[in-house]
């Protein structure tokens, strides 16, 4: 642990394995406290905020959508701390600058904020939707600010129809991890899967804003949240033993995000996973490593987790070990660590909800019923009340315990999409 850095790293696991077993599971809790605690002290780190608004033709109707989007963006601009660099992008099948005119960011102050709001007021809607182009423009705006906290907000109301999924995928692969992007879908005509791809690649969140009137508060919350970040580009650096395999690395709190594919080999037996920027907060990660099977009595380090800053001379903020020890004593190896068990349940919950939604869309109602039933039981067992409430709008629960449910005959699309976008949110174990 490194108290000075403000970061701590805690490992929760049962290191005991039965002789011959290979899979080591651990939950790693990363907590940052005391970052910028000084009263009124602005974070020393530079910050850049880019707001991306969908201005495709579909935003025009109902008229409230573009009006609400404009107002929400204005509120977000108002919320920027003076000194933060910012820009506003309008996106349809192309991406264009709303403010400033040129392809760069400007420092937020009294007069630039007024200018930006005036430019937002003149926004008009037209054209189609190609989100990849928006993200590329944002990426170019962020490029000169390598060490800054880089955050974008993306608001859309429709499907990505004016570029191929391949083009979109290429763009995402190119910009992945370069900035943090929180995505918001307004109305119910957008694709949760699409926005989730963006938020996953860009370490952000995705949410549905059913009512345009709620946009303002949400934008304000997002900018405030982003302004509170003070350490940019923290990475999880994981060493594994030779002949071992890093099976997966997932963020499991506050949401489930699989980071496995974002890992970059950064040294011998070492892989780095981006976690974006940090304020005072706490996140949990589930790490699974497959090690060569050991003999009873053997002990090893199955993984060495370090939290590092980016740049040419990375600083280690905190570190901890994931261990393995083989035993033939049943009472040791049969214990499942409470944290690991809890988050395994939370991941399964997110997975069965997605499976249920896909089955329902495909018309396989039996499968959908079983999956949602399992989800209801899991949500209850793991104490995830928010997800339980979302499920209640899609199914009638006959028995919580066994997860016996009936699909509701009439489901509002907004409820189904809310379940889709919010089902990756997790909770901590009830007892610490």
């Amino acid at each position: 642990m490194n108290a000075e850095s403000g970061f701590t790293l805690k490992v929760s696991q049962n290191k005991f394995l039965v002789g011959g077993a290979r899979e080591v599971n651990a939950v790693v809790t990363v907590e940052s406290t005391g970052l910028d605690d000084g009263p009124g002290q602005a974070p020393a780190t530079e910050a850049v905020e880019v707001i991306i608004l969908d201005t495709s033709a579909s935003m025009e109707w109902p008229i409230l959508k573009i009006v609400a989007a404009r107002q929400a963006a204005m509120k977000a601009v108002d919320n920027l701390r003076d000194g933060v660099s910012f820009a506003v992008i309008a996106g349809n099948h192309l991406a264009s600058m709303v403010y400033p005119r040129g392809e760069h960011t400007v420092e937020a102050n009294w007069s630039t904020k007024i200018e930006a709001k005036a430019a937002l007021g003149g926004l008009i809607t037209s054209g189609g939707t190609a989100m990849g182009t928006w993200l590329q423009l944002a990426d170019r705006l962020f490029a000169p600010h390598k060490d800054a906290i880089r955050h974008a907000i993306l608001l859309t109301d429709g499907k990505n129809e004016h570029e191929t999924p391949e083009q979109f995928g290429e763009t995402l692969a190119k910009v992945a991890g370069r900035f943090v992007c929180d995505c918001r879908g307004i109305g119910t005509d957008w694709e949760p899967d699409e926005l989730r791809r963006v938020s996953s690649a860009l370490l952000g969140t995705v949410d549905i804003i059913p009512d345009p009137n709620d946009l303002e508060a949400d934008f304000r919350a997002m900018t405030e949240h982003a302004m509170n970040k003070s350490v940019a580009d923290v990475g999880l650096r994981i060493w594994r033993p030779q002949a071992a395999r890093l099976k997966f690395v997932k963020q499991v709190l506050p949401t489930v995000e699989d980071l496995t594919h974002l890992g970059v080999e950064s040294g011998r037996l070492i892989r780095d996973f981006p976690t974006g920027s940090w304020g005072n907060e706490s996140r949990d990660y589930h790490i699974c490593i497959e090690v060569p099977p050991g003999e009873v009595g053997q002990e090893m380090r199955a993984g060495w987790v370090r939290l590092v800053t980016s740049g040419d001379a990375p600083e280690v903020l905190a570190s901890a070990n994931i261990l393995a020890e083989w035993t033939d004593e049943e009472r040791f190896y049969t214990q499942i660590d409470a944290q690991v068990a809890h988050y395994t349940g939370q991941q399964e919950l997110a997975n069965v909800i997605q499976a249920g939604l896909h089955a329902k869309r495909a018309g396989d109602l039996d499968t959908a019923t079983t999956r949602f039933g399992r989800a209801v039981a899991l949500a209850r067992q793991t104490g995830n009340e928010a997800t339980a409430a979302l499920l209640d709008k899609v199914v009638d629960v006959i028995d919580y315990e066994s997860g016996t449910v009936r699909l509701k005959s009439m489901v509002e699309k907004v409820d189904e999409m809310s379940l889709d976008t919010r089902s990756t949110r997790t909770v901590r174990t009830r007892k610490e």
Partner: protein
Amino acid sequence: MPTCPAGHPSDDAEYCETCGARIASSSTPSTSAPSISTQNVFEPSISAPSISGPSMSATTVLGVTSPDPVQVCPECGDRLTDRFCEGCGFDALHRQVRRPASPVPRNANPTPGGWAGSTTSGRSWTGGGIDWIAVVSAERAYYERLMAETGSDPATLPYPSRLPERQYPLTSQFLRIGRRSVGRGIQPDIDLSLPPEDPAVSHEHALLLAKPDGTWSLVDLGATNGTLLNDEPEPVPAHLEVPLQNGDRIYVGAWTVITLRKG
């Protein structure tokens, strides 16, 4: 420079930086390091060829291993990683040894109260020479009666295509009947979440209790769908002990029947 047991030089003196093996071997054995007393521990290797595999001889030096001997289920050909096959539920233990030569203590080392909420403290073997066995299987007649009585659609809860008999020797003071729940830390002794899972069984469904006189009784734990005994049309009262006799049939869930056999 320190060298690990596998011969890798390592800058890290505690764990090898190549294979992770612990280097500092002189340290006192960690408090949790198990002291192994094999004579009390039930060795599955006498029955099935090391199903739980603690006596793997194939493993050599860490990092340089020969492949595990893979156990294959003789019923369905799936890989066998535990006593019960994950594919078909085949009970490898009792297939291999139908009747243990001597009564087998299921758990010679009492499990500490690790499973939250479970009461394992009173766990000790009491079978003084009398072998009681609980046999778990499925009964179609019960299933069909239940479906008809509740007006359920058999399509939503189909009768399992196969349910191999599982035998549980009654060797502790009580056995919990239910379905495993990782989230709630429930690990029943007779776990009906094993495939094919009987979803109508509650997680904590019922108990089999050993009586001082060597007989057994049944306690329903307030299960959602109740517990039936033999041909009684009404479920047994919840939370009350019901004495059991040799040959009694306990019906739980949608199709599960647990038959008690003595000797």
